[in-house]
């Protein structure tokens, strides 16, 4: 292992080293940071949005992104909460996830079949779906005191919170799809060079459409997780920052928005950097406005550094 290999390894996994350095520094500054309960807390906090981030990783690898996931998330959450008393918990879950898939399908058709730019198509559905969710609940927050969803959202499986278990299942499934299936490889090919993929016989429109369906399903699943945890939903507030923070997690992890590369593990590291940072700033007693400032600066610095370094390598 010569110097060059080490250098390349460090460059490719920079976010991992940033994470380790952060953990070391923060545990030195605050004794409460490196405790099991706090670390579990960080994971619970990021698990709901994390599921969407995982789907967003696949989308960004394929060269797409989605601004409407937050609205889809809100619609699915209020649908889930409101349906529980009428059809039971599990059918309501299924309905919410399918509703997410349907929203995703609309996006997919607009982008892949009608060939609209993803930014504009999902901007339109973002506004429209938020309108639907608000209209459905008449803008009021709704809640449900069902014991089963409370147990699902706040219970433990082998001493690990259920939500964290769900997050890691989603992570492993997406890792398997991206790494070991034809579907996953074709996503990389489509994101890397769309024309080339088309020439190689890959049905590019199909993959681009499926990406949005996956994003919709993930938003639905996240909505169910959030609904179970909080037993309530507010169409005006839920998921307002979901699309941007899930994209930020992926990008801070080192996956370029230009497509064709990336992995869920990188995104996990990116999400952890943001999650740990947020937790640490709170533990260290930094005011909320300064926290926001620091989080914004971290996104800019990490992304700019990543682009500069990779540009030097080419």
């Amino acid at each position, binding site marked *: 292992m010569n110097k060059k290999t080490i250098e390349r390894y460090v460059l490719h996994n920079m976010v991992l080293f940033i994470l380790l350095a952060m953990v070391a520094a923060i545990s030195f500054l605050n004794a409460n940071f490196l405790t099991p309960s706090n670390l579990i807390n960080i994971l619970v906090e990021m698990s709901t949005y994390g599921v969407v981030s995982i789907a967003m990783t696949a989308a960004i690898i394929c060269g797409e992104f989605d601004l409407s996931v937050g609205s889809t998330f809100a619609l699915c959450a209020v649908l889930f909460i409101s349906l529980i008393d009428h059809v039971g918990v599990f059918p309501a879950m299924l309905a919410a996830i399918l509703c997410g898939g349907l929203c995703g399908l609309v996006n997919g058709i607009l982008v892949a079949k009608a060939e609209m*730019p993803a930014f504009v198509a999902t*901007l339109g559905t973002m506004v429209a779906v938020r309108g*639907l969710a608000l209209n459905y609940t008449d803008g009021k927050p709704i809640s449900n005191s069902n014991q089963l969803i409370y147990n699902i959202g706040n219970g433990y499986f082998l001493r690990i919170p259920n939500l964290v278990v769900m997050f890691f299942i989603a992570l492993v499934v997406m890792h398997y799809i991206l790494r070991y299936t034809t579907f996953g490889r074709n996503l990389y090919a489509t994101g890397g060079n769309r024309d080339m993929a088309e020439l190689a016989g890959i049905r590019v429109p199909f993959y681009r459409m499926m990406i949005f369906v996956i994003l919709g399903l993930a938003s639905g699943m996240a909505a169910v997780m959030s609904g179970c945890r909080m037993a309530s939903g507010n169409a005006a507030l839920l998921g307002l920052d979901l699309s941007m923070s899930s994209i930020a997690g992926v990008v801070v992890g080192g996956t370029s928005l230009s497509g064709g590369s990336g992995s869920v593990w990188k995104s996990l590291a990116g999400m952890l950097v943001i999650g740990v940072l947020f937790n640490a700033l709170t533990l260290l007693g930094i005011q909320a*406005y300064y926290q926001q400032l620091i989080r914004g600066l971290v996104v800019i610095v990490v*992304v700019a550094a990543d682009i500069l370094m990779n540009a030097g390598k080419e």
Partner: protein
Amino acid sequence: MKTDKKTLLNLLCNYGLLIALLLIIAAASVFSKEFFTVANMLNILRQSTVVGIMAIGVTVVIIAGHIDLSIGSTVSLAGIIAILLINNTGNDWWAMTASVLAGALVGLVNGAIIAGIKGRTCDSFIITFGMQTVVAAVALIYSGGNFLTGRGRGVHSLIGKGYVPILIFLGLAVLLELIMKKTPFGRCVYFMGANPKAAKMSGVSVRRNTALLFVIAGVCASLAAVVMCSRVSAASPTSGKGYELDAIAAVVVGGTSMQGGKGGILRTLLGVVVIGVLGNALNILNITTYPQMFIRGVIIIAAVLLDVLGSKLSSGVVSK
């Protein structure tokens, strides 16, 4: 020229938005006597000025193939600066100048970073998203998170009254249209958007122009903030939150392509008017807020769909 089916379809796609605007106006005038009056038309224009001024600024950025998500936060910050300085110094001109300079500075930082890393569209997306968070935080810190009220008199309070905001909006639109169409800078911006590599090889100073683009967007956002704060004589540190997407929506509804190199300020003007007229017409027709949101989303999609269809039809034909 044959007037066959294809030409007709082409015409529909190119002037679809104008036709849609006339249809909305006609339909709303039938349902309500108050709609098609001078007072209401001026009212629509005045209401559209804030997002409109932001939209014409960001149009320039979008034509160059970039995007700016930070302009909403710039509105919040510039508004806070304007009201705070007016209250503290009592000098309206100085406060407004400082506010516009702050907008220019935000734009310069955006532009310097993106030019520095030789950013492409996807890079400007994430960098300006980071700036959106940072600038929003600065606005909150600077104001202490407080809602500020102005004096409601002096030069600044006149900016938002009567014809003044409309004249500022239209004046800026004409100025930027002239810059984009009649100056070397404008032509370079179109060139950069259409083919960044070719532009660089032809000796276009891509870096300097990129920085300038974002300064234009920042200045327009702060001017929008000055107008907005004058209209309500107050500023909130979150007043511009989400406005960037409204402005971008107006740009794309007008027909400027997100891929860059195509579109123009006048198209954005049309987009702003269509969205303004539609909102007003829906209000007059007694349609409540939430269904209005749904309709607005559908309109954004429909307008762009029409545009995509139009460019497919006329592909191969050089058009401006």
